[in-house]
Each structure stands twice: as structure tokens, then as C-alpha cells.
């Protein structure tokens, strides 16, 4: 009961957000002379055959995985008030290094994959670590250094790809690293469909989905259940209070950026290990920036980020069917932006409603009765507190008042 009450305000926010987003973006569409109902219908239409529907789901999940990882990477740093805009550069550099090393070695199956993943995490962590070290030792704002390091990473990646790591033949239209041997590929998860008796779609469900789930759980536990996570959250909420409580703030900056970077290193892995098997000039870019939006939309909370990533992926998938249905692709982008804003605004409104109700709960306990005024708290039947459903524990009130 009390758990449900506690959950009330938490659930309120996303529900309100989605409803508001649907309404607001509907209004925007109407203003653009596009029928929102048709657009929504196209968006949720996953196709007629089971195979098509499963394909749509696979497309969404495959897109959601890197978005989720990117959001997670950004969120870890955000939790402690660090703005890691550098996820973009971190994962790009990590992916090319991992691709090159992965192609250069021959190892048995799982080990090969593990090595590639570890290399990617290490490279991205080091790259993020530069930001942390510059901040801690030289006081360089992480916003600038990570913006700059993004460009530097891009340049270095370009140099490596055209120079030492070039694996594609001269004259090939796309420059790429050498292909990773099959032992270094991540198997797809399509057996799940057979196991569940669903139609097996032609698209490969990225095996990295599992890894992402595990990473999500690990990060979630780390942030919410461990001392480290507590220190991190405390530093984010109040650096001065955290320091006074014994948190080593410099060390925290470095550790947090290393973790954030390590997660960022995973972003390119689903593509690298699942489909491309090499890093190319066309390797998906911009995931780091989308990660910022995803993290913020998910309120820096792993579960929220998962939903945000799915939402983004869902909207991205709609891009093609909408074009097929003769809606311009730009409408989708506009809807994306509107939804981010709408969700964020309704989050804010929901937060305030929750705060109000908390205050009201507080009020039921009264302005603190005076010392020695024992028991003469505001005379209210205990039920009054419940009736408001403000998610507060009226039971304790008795204790406090007594």
C-alpha cells in the first residue's frame, strides 16, 4: 500500500508526460496541417504479417540499444553534476580502436568478443579520463574539454582509419578497418523468437541487447544501491555537503568519468560486433548527442533511460513508414523535438504536483507543534491525511505528534 503510494507520483510523471506529448505534438501537427491521428496510426502500425511486426520490433530494439547505452553514459556523469558532452568522441575513438585490435587478433569465440569490448571500454574510459584529469588538476571546464575532445577524437579516428588502421583495398568507395574474424562477432538473438513461438523476422536482433540489459542493471545497482553510488549522488546534489561527509570529490570526478567513458565505449559495439564487423567512415555518428537527450528524458534513471531510448527508437522507426504514407520526414524530427520538450515540461509539472502533495502531507503533520506543547498537534482525524492520498505516511504522524 505504502509502496504503491510512494510510486504514485513517480508513475504520474511519465504518464502525464506521454499524454501531454501526444496532445502537444498533435497540436503542432495540426498547425502544420498534418492530421495527427493519421500520423499516430502510421506510427503504431507495425505491419500486417507477424514477420513484419517482429521486424518492426527488432528495428526498434536494435536502435534502442545504442541509444540506451549512450543515455546511460551521459547519465552516470550527470548524476554527479558533470556534463559529459564528450560521449560522442569517446565511443567513436573506442570503436575504431576496438575494431582495429579485434581484426588484428585471432582468439576463440567469446574471448575475442570480450577482448574487443574491453578494449572499447578502456579506450573510451581513458578518453573520458582526460576530461576528468584536466578538470581536477587544471580546473578546465568539462563542457569545453569534452566538446574539444570530440573534435580531436574525430580527427584521430580519421587519421587512424586512413592511415595505420586502413583495411579496405585502395580504391574501395568506403574506407574501413580490416574485418573482424567471425569469432569476434556477436551472435544474434533471433533464437528467442523461435523459443517463444513467434515469427522469426529476417532482421537480426542484436545480441548486444542482453549486454545492454546487464549493463543497465549493473549501473542501476551501482548508482542506487552502493556506497559509491551514494557518494556520486551526494556529490551531484551538493558537492560541498558530499565533501564534508568525507567524499573525495576529485577522486569521484575521475572515477565517474571513467565509468561514464567505459559505458560510452559500448555504444558502438552493437553495430561493430553485430552488423558491420569493421569501423568505416560511415559508422553511425551522433549517438553521443542523442544520448544527452535520452538521458535527460529518462531523468538520469536507468529505467527511465530505457523507456526514453525505446521512445526515440520508436519515433525513428516511424520515419520510413511515414514517408511511405506521404508524410515528410521532417515532421518526425519536429515531433521528436516536441516530444522531448513536452515530456520534459510535463515531468516538471508532475514533479511540482508531487512536491505539492508532499507539502500537503507535511502540512497535515502541522507546523511543528511547540516544545512542551506535547500532543497538541493540529487536531485532525488520521483519515484526513489519507483522504488526500498525498503519498505520505500518516501513521508516523501519530508517533511524531505523541
Amino acid at each position, binding site marked *: 500500500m505504502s509502496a504503491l503510494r510512494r510510486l504514485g507520483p513517480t508513475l504520474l510523471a511519465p504518464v502525464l508526460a506521454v499524454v501531454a506529448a501526444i496532445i502537444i505534438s498533435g497540436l503542432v501537427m495540426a498547425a*502544420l496541417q498534418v492530421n495527427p491521428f493519421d500520423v499516430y496510426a502510421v506510427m503504431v502500425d507495425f505491419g500486417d504479417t507477424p514477420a513484419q511486426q517482429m521486424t518492426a520490433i527488432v528495428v526498434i530494439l536494435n536502435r534502442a540499444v545504442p541509444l540506451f547505452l549512450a543515455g546511460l553514459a551521459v547519465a552516470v556523469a550527470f548524476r554527479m553534476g558533470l*556534463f559529459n*558532452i564528450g560521449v560522442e568522441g569517446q565511443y567513436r575513438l573506442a570503436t575504431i580502436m576496438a575494431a582495429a585490435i579485434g581484426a588484428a587478433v585471432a582468439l576463440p569465440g567469446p574471448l575475442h568478443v570480450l577482448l574487443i569490448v574491453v578494449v572499447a571500454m578502456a579506450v573510451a574510459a581513458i578518453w573520458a579520463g582526460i576530461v576528468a584529469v*584536466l578538470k581536477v588538476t*587544471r*580546473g*578546465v*571546464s568539462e*563542457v*569545453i*574539454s569534452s*566538446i*574539444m*575532445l570530440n*573534435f*580531436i577524437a*574525430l*580527427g*584521430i*579516428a*580519421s*587519421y*587512424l*582509419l*586512413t*592511415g595505420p588502421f586502413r583495411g579496405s583495398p585502395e580504391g574501395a568507395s568506403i574506407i574501413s578497418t580490416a574485418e573482424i574474424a567471425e569469432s569476434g562477432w556477436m551472435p544474434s538473438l533471433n533464437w528467442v523468437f523461435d523459443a517463444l513461438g513467434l515469427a522469426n523476422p529476417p532482421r537480426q536482433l542484436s545480441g548486444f541487447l542482453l549486454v545492454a540489459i546487464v549493463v543497465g542493471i549493473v549501473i542501476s545497482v551501482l548508482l542506487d544501491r552502493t556506497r559509491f553510488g551514494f557518494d556520486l549522488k551526494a556529490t551531484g546534489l551538493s558537492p560541498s555537503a558530499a565533501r564534508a561527509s568525507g567524499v573525495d570529490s576529485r577522486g569521484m570526478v575521475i572515477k565517474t568519468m571513467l565509468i561514464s567513458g567505459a559505458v560510452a565505449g559500448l555504444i558502438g559495439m552493437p553495430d561493430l560486433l553485430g552488423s558491420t564487423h569493421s569501423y568505416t567512415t560511415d559508422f553511425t555518428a551522433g549517438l553521443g*548527442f542523442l544520448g*544527452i*537527450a535520452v538521458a*535527460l*528524458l529518462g531523468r538520469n534513471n536507468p529505467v527511465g533511460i530505457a523507456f526514453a531510448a525505446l521512445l526515440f527508437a520508436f519515433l525513428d522507426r516511424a520515419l520510413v513508414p511515414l514517408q511511405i504514407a506521404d508524410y*515528410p*520526414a*521532417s*515532421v*518526425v*524530427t*519536429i*515531433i*521528436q*523535438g*516536441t516530444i*522531448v*520538450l513536452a515530456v*520534459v*515540461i510535463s515531468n*516538471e*509539472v508532475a514533479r*511540482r504536483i508531487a512536491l505539492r502533495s508532499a507539502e500537503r502531507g507535511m502540512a497535515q503533520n502541522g507546523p511543528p507543534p511547540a516544545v512542551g506543547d506535547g500532543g497538541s498537534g493540529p487536531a485532525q482525524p488520521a483519515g484526513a491525511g489519507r483522504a488526500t492520498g498525498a503519498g505520505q505516511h500518516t501513521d508516523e504522524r501519530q508517533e511524531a505528534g505523541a
Partner: protein
Amino acid sequence: MSTVTTAPQRAGRGPVTELLLGGGRARRITWLVVAAFVLVSAVRVISGEQALTSSSTISAALLLAVPIGLAALGGLFSERAGVVNIGLDGMMTLGTWGAGFAGYQWGWSAALLGGVLFGALGGLLHALATVTFGVDHVVSGVAINILAAGVVRFLSELFYTDNPAGGGVTQSPSLSSDPPDFSVPVLSSGPDLLGHLERLNWFLVSDVAGVLRGLTSGVGLLTLLAVLLVPASYLLLWRTAFGLRLRSCGENPAAADSLGVPVYRLKYIAVLISGALAGMGGVFLVFIAGIYREGQTNGRGFIGLAALIFGNWRPGGLAAGAGLFGYADALQLRSRSAVVALFLLLAVLLAGVAVWQAVHRRAVRAVIAGAVAVGSLVAFLSIDELAPGLVSFTPHLTTLLVLSLASQRLRPPKAVGLVYRRGEN
């Protein structure tokens, strides 16, 4: 009266700054600029890389610096009023579209107006979200960046497909008139005295001539305006009552509110100005190209944000940041071999640092600085030309190096990024 003994506390300075910055501020800065210039000039003579101070490089630097500087100025207004503006890039994008749209129909002055207006619209949205709805500033900014990309594409689809004047979903028709530009007569046009001096390749003299010529020939109207906006912003923000009020919203909005300063209104105005300036940065890009082109901003809004922080949230500082960035960028676009000459510059600078540290008996630091100096020298002597990938980030690396060598005494507005709600403080 009681004696309160707290004396001014100033944050510490790093060695380089301490070495160069003793004395009054204006004098220190002048000295610093002169020293840097002499150094660059010497490096030019030694390395023979004329591009280092050629008028061509300098005018390119100016072109590259202006949009960044305008975005940074935009950021200045908004952040001084307490609103973080990550959405600068989106506002700039809107500015490019507005400029293209108005410009192809009514010429350059309409383009300027249109771009500024569109940028301001982006600012209005940001203000609405952050000030009225209390949305986290970063979130709103990120959303605006996404939104702007969609809006401009949509508008282009609406107006430019099948437009007889030309254009398409990714670009506008050409501006129907070009903005004027100026060259200073005698010095940079006609007899072109400076150009003459520059070609002599004399130590210092030709460098001065090159820089002056770069800054005085073919200067666009908007460049002039942008350069003037730097002192103008300073005067507005630091010398007028309006500026004081605006800045108070970024330092302590509750205090401002308690004195009857209309905090919300000022924040709105500031963010609108911010969007307008970022939009003007977009107009500048459109003026160079003569058309609106999708994706034209290429992340310059973010660089502008970096320049703002680099410049310690001050007009002069951000102009220096934008200038430094523009210069390094111009250099790498002009000549890949000239970039190598920067290693010599770095070597000399670090040698200086090493000596300084040694004098102060900080052996470890001295050794590190010395080693890197030697490394830079070796790099200078052995490398002819850097790979394109490596050259491309010259401006970014330079900015980062300068930031990490110079000590950090950054002082952001105290309440920047905090959502202010009346009565909740």
C-alpha cells in the same frame, strides 16, 4: 565600526599567468598580446611559414571567428541572466534559415533581419521552457537543437520545393543582393601599402602589416557589426542600469526580485537577445555562402559556448576565445605545414615554463615541461606536414592547450542553470 578582517581572496594563478600577468589588468593583457605577437613573428621568420601572419590567414581567421563570437555573445547574454543556453546551435540554425528565406526575396538587409528574428524565436522558445515552465536549461537547449533541425527542414519543404526562384529542401535560393564590404583605402586597397609591406617578409614589420591588412581589407558589414558588438555588449552589460539588472538575475535572482527587478521579464529579454545574436551568427554564415544551406552551422554554436566559457563569461574574453579558435582554424585550412610551425611555438612556450618552474624549484614540473618542449622541437624539425585527420583539430587542441596551461580562474554567474521560481528560495 568593527574590523572585519576577511581580506580579498583571489584564486591562485598558474605559473605562466603569474609570469606574464603581473601588474594592472590592461597592461598585463597588452604585454601578453605583444609578447605573443613577437613570438609568432619570430617563429614565422625561423620556419619560413608566411601563412602564420599573412593577411589571407588573418582575414580567414576573422571570418571563422565571427560566427563563433556571435554565438558566444548570445550565450553571454543568456548565461549572465542565469539561463544556460545549449540551444545556441539550434538558434543559429534557425537564423540561417530565416536569413535565407528573407534574403532571397528582399536582399541582404532583410536577411539580417530575418535571421535575427528567427534566432530570437528560438530564444523565445527557450525562455518559455526555462523561465515560464521551469524546465531544466540543458534539456530545453538539447530539445531546441533537435527541434530546429526538423523545423528548418520542414519549412524548406514547404517553401522551396518547386520554388521558381530555386532552392530545395536543403537550400534556399540565392540572396537577391550581397551585403557591402569595406576596405580601408590607401592602406589595403588602391595603393595597398600594407600589402606591399607584407610582401617584404621583414621580421615584425611584415607581420604587423599582414595582420592589419587582414583586418582591414574586404571586411564585411556584419563582421564590422560583430566586432563592434563586443565592446557594445560590455558597455550594455557592465555600464548601464539595464545590464546591472540583467546580470543580477544570473547572480542572485531572489535578491533582484526582492528589489523589484522584474527577473522573469529580464530573463526573457536576455534569452531573446541571446537567440537573436546566435541567429545573427547564422546570418553571417549565409552571407558568406550567399545561400542558406542545411547543416551550415556545423556545430559552431557549441564552439561558441566553449568560447564563452573560455572567455570567463566576459565579452573581451570570449572574443579572445573565438579569435584564437578562428586563427588556429584558419591556419590549418590555409596550410598544413604552417601548423607544424606551431610546434616551434609550443616548444618555446614550454621551455619558458620549464625555466620558470625550475627557478621556483618545482623539479618535476620543470622536467615535464622541458621534456614536452624538446618533444615539440623534435616534432617541428622532423615533421613536414601533418596528416589531414590530425591537422583538422588544430583549433580544438590549441584551445584545450591554452586552457590547461593558463590557470583557471573561471567565475560563472552564480545562479546560472538554476531554475528560478519566485518565492521558492
